[in-house]
């Protein structure tokens, strides 16, 4: 069994105290209504996670990569971003996409790879893209989105488009060459990039202390001339506050910044992983005590902005909406075969026209057993 040495927590500010009161120096100045939105977004993400994992176990979807325990780092950062800003995701940030107004139905259609799927059944579940929501493509190879986000931000700066580009990656990706080149180029070009390191302490089965000999992940940024901070990624208000300040720094100084959000992956890496094979339960139990939803709920209750009825109604609303989406997604037809030849090139070249014709009018046209 392995155990990550929990990286030093000193100097990591927390906004929500254990009793639910607030340390205002590390908390954003936002309304109770906005705080409820943050909490509901986290709750929604968690309910969806649970349901999708069950669907995968039932064999109704092939795969899901969830964010159990990491909701505060994902929603606290994504919801602090401006509507004009772009997000380049890692693969665990479906909550961020939904928080931008991406319809739940479209997300579920992607899980089922049906004819309505925004990426037309071409990608694994949880590999979505939505240009309309300023949300880049999920890429399975670790880290490639980092240098792309830097290029995107650099080009936007050349075009005098005053946006910030946020790019998510895990602690494991800090070992990738794209992390190195991404931070290096961003430092050299002064690209307006917010590097969001979601340190959930596990890269599948590799604990963070075997990922790096650095004291923490944020300190890596300084060698590229990139400013960095760490925040309590299980405290949605501390995260929101840190990100808001980082966005101000990036636009004011015309420089990139990196935030290491310290959190914990309470579930498996994905539905293909069972973490009981490599880590001990008491570690998970200990982190469950810092569960971001529990902490934020305590704060809202302290404010008088949340109660048991709110909780059960909110959960029920998501479950109901989700059930309808799943029903529709399962009833939808699969993508048309012919569409597999679309978008390989901007226009379908002759050799693909020929292959499409052979596929559609070939053996499957006369053999009823072929779909």
């Amino acid at each position, binding site marked *: 069994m392995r155990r990550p040495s929990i990286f030093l927590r000193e100097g990591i500010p927390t906004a929500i105290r254990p009793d639910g009161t607030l340390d205002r120096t590390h908390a954003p100045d936002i309304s109770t209504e906005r705080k409820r939105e943050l909490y509901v977004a986290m709750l929604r993400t968690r309910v969806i996670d649970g349901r999708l994992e069950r669907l995968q176990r039932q064999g109704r979807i092939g795969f899901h990569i969830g964010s159990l325990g990491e909701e505060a780092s994902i929603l606290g950062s994504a919801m602090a971003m401006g509507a004009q800003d772009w997000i380049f995701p890692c693969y665990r940030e479906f909550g961020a996409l939904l928080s931008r107004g991406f319809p739940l139905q479209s997300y579920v259609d992607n899980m089922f790879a049906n004819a309505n799927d925004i990426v037309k059944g071409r990608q694994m579940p949880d590999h979505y*893209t939505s240009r309309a929501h300023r949300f*880049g493509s999920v890429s399975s190879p670790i880290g490639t989105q980092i240098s792309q986000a830097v*290029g995107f931000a650099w*080009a936007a700066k050349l075009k005098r488009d005053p946006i910030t580009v946020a790019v998510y990656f895990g602690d494991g990706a800090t070992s990738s060459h794209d992390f190195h080149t991404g931070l290096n180029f961003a430092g050299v070009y002064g690209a307006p990039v917010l590097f969001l390191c979601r340190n959930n302490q596990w890269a599948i089965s590799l604990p963070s202390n075997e990922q790096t000999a650095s004291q923490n992940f944020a300190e890596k940024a300084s060698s590229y001339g990139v400013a960095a901070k760490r925040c309590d990624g299980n405290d949605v208000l501390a995260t929101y506050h840190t990100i808001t300040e980082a966005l101000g720094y990036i636009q004011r100084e015309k420089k990139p910044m990196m935030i290491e959000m310290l959190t914990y992956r309470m579930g498996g890496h994905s539905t293909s992983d069972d973490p009981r094979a490599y880590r001990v339960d008491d570690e998970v139990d200990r982190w469950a005590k810092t569960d971001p939803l529990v902490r934020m709920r305590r704060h809202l209750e302290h404010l008088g902005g949340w109660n048991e009825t709110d909780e059960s109604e909110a959960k029920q609303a998501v479950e109901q909406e989700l059930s309808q989406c799943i029903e529709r997604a399962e009833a939808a037809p699969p993508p048309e075969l012919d569409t597999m030849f679309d978008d390989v090139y901007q226009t379908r070249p002759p050799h693909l026209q020929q292959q499409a014709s052979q596929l559609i009018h070939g053996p499957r046209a006369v053999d009823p057993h072929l779909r």
Partner: protein
Amino acid sequence: MLEEMRLDENIVLMGEEVGYYQGAYKVTQGLLEEFGSDRVVDTPIAEAGFAGIGIGAAMVGLRPIIEFMTWNFSFVAFDQIVQNAAKLYQMSAGQLQVPIVFRGPNGAAKQVSSQHSHAVEAFYTHVPGLWVCAPATPRDAKGLLKAAIRDNNPVIFLEGETLYGIKGEVPEVEEDEIIPIGKAAVAREGTDATIVTWGSPYYTSLAAAERLAGAGIECEIIDMRSLRPLDMETVLQSVRKTNRCVVVHEHWPYAGPGAEIVDGIQRDAMDHLDAPILRVTGQDVPMPYATNLEENVLPTEARVEEAVKQVCYRQ
């Protein structure tokens, strides 16, 4: 590049030594001076890095030209090119377009041995989503590069490293000549055998054809110019006329566009063939350094000549 960059301010050039140093092969001479460092960008040494930067920039609407100092160094950027540039348009179902040109010198130069001598076309032609160009003449290099820059798909542009010194007529700016991607050229007309080739071995083939003419064999030479898509129609027309074919290329013999061309001919012109199709390729070994070894790894005039005679049963 100069002409296109004057026409479209979204075109940017990135790579090692492309700016102040004006290119390791002086290909980018004068560009920094005219367009400034926002558009002619000297990058840190990290091919994977600036390939990724270029892909990201293309999503915003820039049209980056990424120069690899040589294609040999593109392998560290393979993930960005193959897993990202080539697939993003398809994976995002048309939401993210990547109009980008990756270009640089390809193939053996002289005595730069195994890590600097790759003819990379077999790697990149394998990938759907990419176009691959490999011009041989200055005129084609100009017209095809213009086409590549204006194309909205990612293009791999292979410039034969030994061809930078070749001189030839190129059309004036006003003519704005575009050589379409995927169109081969009949570079020499002949009746007895077809030689299909591209890039540096084009010149080897031309020289061999002249020698063969002295022996009474008239070769038709097809310069493919583009390797994805392949203009098989032009190849087939020629083979149906000559009934014999030799494919000459620098890349290793195992798989690749050379083998793909042979497959297309056997499938669509079987009944026209009077002899098996032969290939003259780089030897199936990493490129050695010693001059005599290197010269004999590459396709030589003698080997082309012998192969043509063989398909003509003239030995």
